[in-house]
């Protein structure tokens, strides 16, 4: 005769009809003399029956825009990496490593340098330094994950952002082809994961080089600041209840100023 604790792990396969003959017999025998377990099995079966009966309704349908984005990831990866190759059948399935352990070597090296330098190089005592550090890490990572290098519509992204995250965001307009008046092309808008989703991350293309614009929904800085760290320039300021950080590599610093001015002129 099995005790209640011995029967416990057998209840699910018993209810599901997947218990072996011996296990089923043992559970039947126990239930015949244990009213509590009998009630539990009956309740478990009732809940299971409800779920199975409502399975079709419970299965959600993913929004069309999500399907489109996922398909876009496939297309983007198809152009960026070699086609999949079959593995040895004896090799077990192994899920991919966490995203931050799988950056290509250059990104990994750069990020590790950033992280180590950030901790030991300076104390992150000032908010502008902390922002620059955090955003630069995110920029280095996400520039490679920004999806297809196409052009997306700023107005559509604004509406999607407001509807999804509940706070309005002004996205500087851009054209499908950059011009002197509009030097950057919008590639995408995402939540910045590094900052727990509270920050909007606009990703632009500037002559083949990524430019990030981060928008925080609060005033974080008493005064504007420019921070140059690890080969990247972060220009940041707070205005109208928002904090903005424009970030790109430092290799074209003089030419970067018009880009920053363009962003400043179009985020309000």
């Amino acid at each position, binding site marked *: 005769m099995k005790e209640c604790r011995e029967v416990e792990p057998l209840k699910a396969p018993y209810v599901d009809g997947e218990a072996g003959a011996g296990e089923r017999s043992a559970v039947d025998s126990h239930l015949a003399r244990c009213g509590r377990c009998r009630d539990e099995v009956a*309740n478990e079966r009732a809940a299971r029956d409800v779920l199975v009966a409502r399975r079709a309704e*419970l299965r959600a349908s993913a929004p069309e825009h999500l399907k489109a984005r996922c398909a876009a990831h496939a297309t983007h990866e198809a152009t960026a990496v070699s086609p999949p190759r*079959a593995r040895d059948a004896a090799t077990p399935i192994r899920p991919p490593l966490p995203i931050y352990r799988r950056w290509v070597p250059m990104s990994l090296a750069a990020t590790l340098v950033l992280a180590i330098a950030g901790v030991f190089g300076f104390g992150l005592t000032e908010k502008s330094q902390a922002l620059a550090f955090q955003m630069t890490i995110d920029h280095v990572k996400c520039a490679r994950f920004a999806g297809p290098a196409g052009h997306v519509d700023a107005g559509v992204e604004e509406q999607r952002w407001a509807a*999804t995250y509940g706070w309005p965001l002004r996205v500087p307009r851009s054209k499908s082809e950059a011009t002197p008046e509009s030097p950057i092309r919008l590639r995408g808008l995402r939540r910045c994961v590094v900052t727990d989703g509270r920050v909007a991350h606009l990703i632009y293309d500037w002559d083949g080089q990524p430019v990030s614009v981060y928008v925080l929904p609060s005033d974080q800085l008493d005064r504007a600041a420019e921070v140059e760290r690890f080969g990247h320039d972060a220009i940041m300021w707070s205005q109208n209840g928002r904090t903005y950080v424009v970030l790109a590599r430092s290799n074209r610093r003089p030419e970067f100023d018009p880009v920053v001015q363009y962003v400043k002129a179009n985020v309000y």
Partner: protein
Amino acid sequence: VRPEGDDPFTAEALSYVDGLYGAALRLTRRPADAEDLVQDTYLKAFRSSSQFERGTNLKAWLFTILHNTFLNMRRHDGRNPVDVDSEAVEQAADLRPSQHTPEQLLTRATLDADLQAALDSLPEAFRQAVWLRDVEEFSYAEIAQMMQVPIGTVMSRISRGRRMLYEKMAKARVAG
């Protein structure tokens, strides 16, 4: 650009987007977070497609990535799912049998909103085990691999999760 339809891996992977989104919704309970989770899952899957062993269960592989990605998100939130589970196990042990018959429960559960709310109120580990089993129809072994726990633990979580769900719906019936 390689068209989606020319790549069986991509086409099959994308066919599971509804299931992944449903599971992500149950995990995160927020549509925006669920969308992010599904996107991250596909991004990782496509980048790691060479690691997938052809002929094995692609759906289970994708759900495993989804689960791992969610755990990483949780770690960034500073919460520890193990602590939640331990607490929930203690709570589950205190459940008392409901006075409602299974037939009454089935009648009550005709409302999707009630059922969804009851599901969402389950502790995470139990919610996920029950969902993967009863809605997504995975085997115990597949769930054990996804959640990286012993198969006995999976069976126990499914069983306890279903009973908790029953009690939640029974209470909703009283409240209603």
